[in-house]
């Protein structure tokens, strides 16, 4: 009887010891995990932009076959990945280059997998218009051929979608091929449901393709049609840039008049404030003209030339 009681006590003690041991391992393990996580957070890995990380392994055709009935969802995934990819690159660039990013040339961002990402998204869902629109805005800044290929594929797949003609027309207009741009605007304008301004733009492209008014209208229409905030911001800045070009022409005329009359360039904005006042908004204290974003222009080259303040929302380059 006593032996049995002893055995039970020993078994219970052993059981308690095992439980305590396990609890200790659990507690110590949890503490270890927290400490390790804290150490990892404190020592972030150096961000290496490895080429290998930036490759896409799936070809568009293969992806379409593999996704079965879920091709639309896969297209959405690649679309969101495209947005995140560009956004991440822009943020990284702005962190390391505090100056403004050029809207005319995004090659500094090294967006090498953006074209295949957009191709994947549109192959998986050829009726998905947003990637074409995004591609029309971003791709021409570093790879015009990819932009044309993407939009041409889009028109092949959606021949009745006038917006794609508008976007391809814009791509050709940017590359200076005004005749092709005019043809596309006119072709898009003939499609059912296309707004009347498409045909008007087609005619305008033929007559005054390189004019600022044509550019402004093109940006305005693209802005109105776009649903992407990034694209809208880009177009807004383009419109500010067009307005700024016109303002700077007025300022240059005033600077030239002043230097012709006085034989020297102005030393401050107050010297030409009277000439500028009827045409531009001026800063009350300095008399400096304000750009369309509300930032004062700066005098450069000893007061003989005007430029945009690098801190302004108006694209600097």
């Amino acid at each position, binding site marked *: 009887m006593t032996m049995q009681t002893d055995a039970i006590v020993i078994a219970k003690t052993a059981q308690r010891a095992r439980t305590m041991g396990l609890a200790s391992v659990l507690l110590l393990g949890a503490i270890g995990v927290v400490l390790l996580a804290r150490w990892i957070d404190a020592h972030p890995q150096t961000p290496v932009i490895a080429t290998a990380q930036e490759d896409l392994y799936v070809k568009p055709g293969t992806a379409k076959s593999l996704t079965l009935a879920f*091709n639309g969802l896969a297209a959405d995934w690649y679309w*969101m990945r495209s947005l995140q990819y560009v956004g991440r690159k822009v943020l990284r660039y702005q962190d390391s280059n505090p100056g403004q990013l050029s809207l005319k040339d995004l090659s500094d961002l090294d967006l090498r997998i953006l074209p295949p990402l957009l191709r994947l998204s549109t192959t998986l869902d050829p*009726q998905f218009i947003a990637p074409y629109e995004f591609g029309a805005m971003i791709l021409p800044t570093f790879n015009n051929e990819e932009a044309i290929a993407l939009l041409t594929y889009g028109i092949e797949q959606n021949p009745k979608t006038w917006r794609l003609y508008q976007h391809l027309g814009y791509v050709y207009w940017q590359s200076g091929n005004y005749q092709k741009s005019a043809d596309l605007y006119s072709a898009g304008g003939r499609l059912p449901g296309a707004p009347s301004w498409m045909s008007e733009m087609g005619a305008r492209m033929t007559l005054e393709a390189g004019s600022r008014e044509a550019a402004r209208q093109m940006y305005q229409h693209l802005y109105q049609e776009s649903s*992407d905030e990034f694209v809208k911001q880009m177009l807004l800045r383009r419109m500010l840039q067009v307005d700024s070009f016109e303002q700077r022409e007025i300022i240059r005329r005033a600077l030239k008049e002043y230097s012709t009359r006085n034989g020297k360039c102005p030393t401050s904005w107050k010297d030409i404030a009277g000439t500028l006042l009827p045409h531009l908004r001026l800063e009350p204290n300095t008399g400096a003209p304000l750009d369309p974003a509300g930032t004062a222009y700066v005098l450069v080259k000893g007061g003989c030339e005007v430029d945009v303040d690098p801190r302004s929302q108006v694209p600097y380059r």
Partner: protein
Amino acid sequence: MNQTVSDTPNSNNADVRPVRGSNSTVSRIGTIARNAFREAVRDRVLYNLVLFVLLLTAGAIFLGELSGGQEAKIIVDLGLSSILLFGVFIAIFVGVGLVHKEIERRTIYAILSKPIGRGEFLLGKYLGLCLTLLVNVLVMGTGVSLALLYVKRGWDPLVIRIWPAILLIYLELAILTAVALLFSSFSSPALSALLTFFVFIAGHFSADLKTFAASLGGTAARWFFTGLYYLLPNFANYSQITPAAHGYAPGATTLLVALLYATLYAGVVLAAGTLVFNQRNFK
């Protein structure tokens, strides 16, 4: 004496007792279907799936904010894809267990000792799971429509236009359920699930089979792949999720033909299942 399977909520199919005036085949099938439905609904996994998809739809609303103005499209894609995916899981995993459970619990002896044909038993089980899937699909589809109303802050034509695509998803699931029942009538649940899943995958490639067959030089190979094409269900005809996300709805003729094809295909598969099931010896 007229006898049929009991339809009391807490009984399984083994509880068989006389039911007044229910001597017709339709009545017997209906009773088995009701019981199969109740059994599936009592299954907690089924509830969890519904809840999970509703949560997924809610998640889509937040995901939509990352989409650059494409919230509605992404919600439709995500919602309808979830309906299909979870429906496929239910059709396969519940479908292959319908017959097997009865055999394992030995309740099949009690059922088949009554004046119930094996074909009636299979058809009842099939209709019961179809009813479960219908409820499931309707709840999920309503969830997607509500999510669209939320995202669009009001009425949007997509709320209605997604429903033909949902109907096609349901028909695809109905075919798949029949296939699952066919396999489960002669093989183990694991193998049945595997084979049914294979049919689901192959069914989405069946159009490629036809193209492949046409490109072959040998007559025998061409006949083989053409035969395979007609043997497998062509699920590509039921994949309207992506067009639905753009607001395109299939026409009435498409829907009618799809319904007819699904009914015929499921009928043939169930007939084959009954043939196999009839040969099975439970002793």
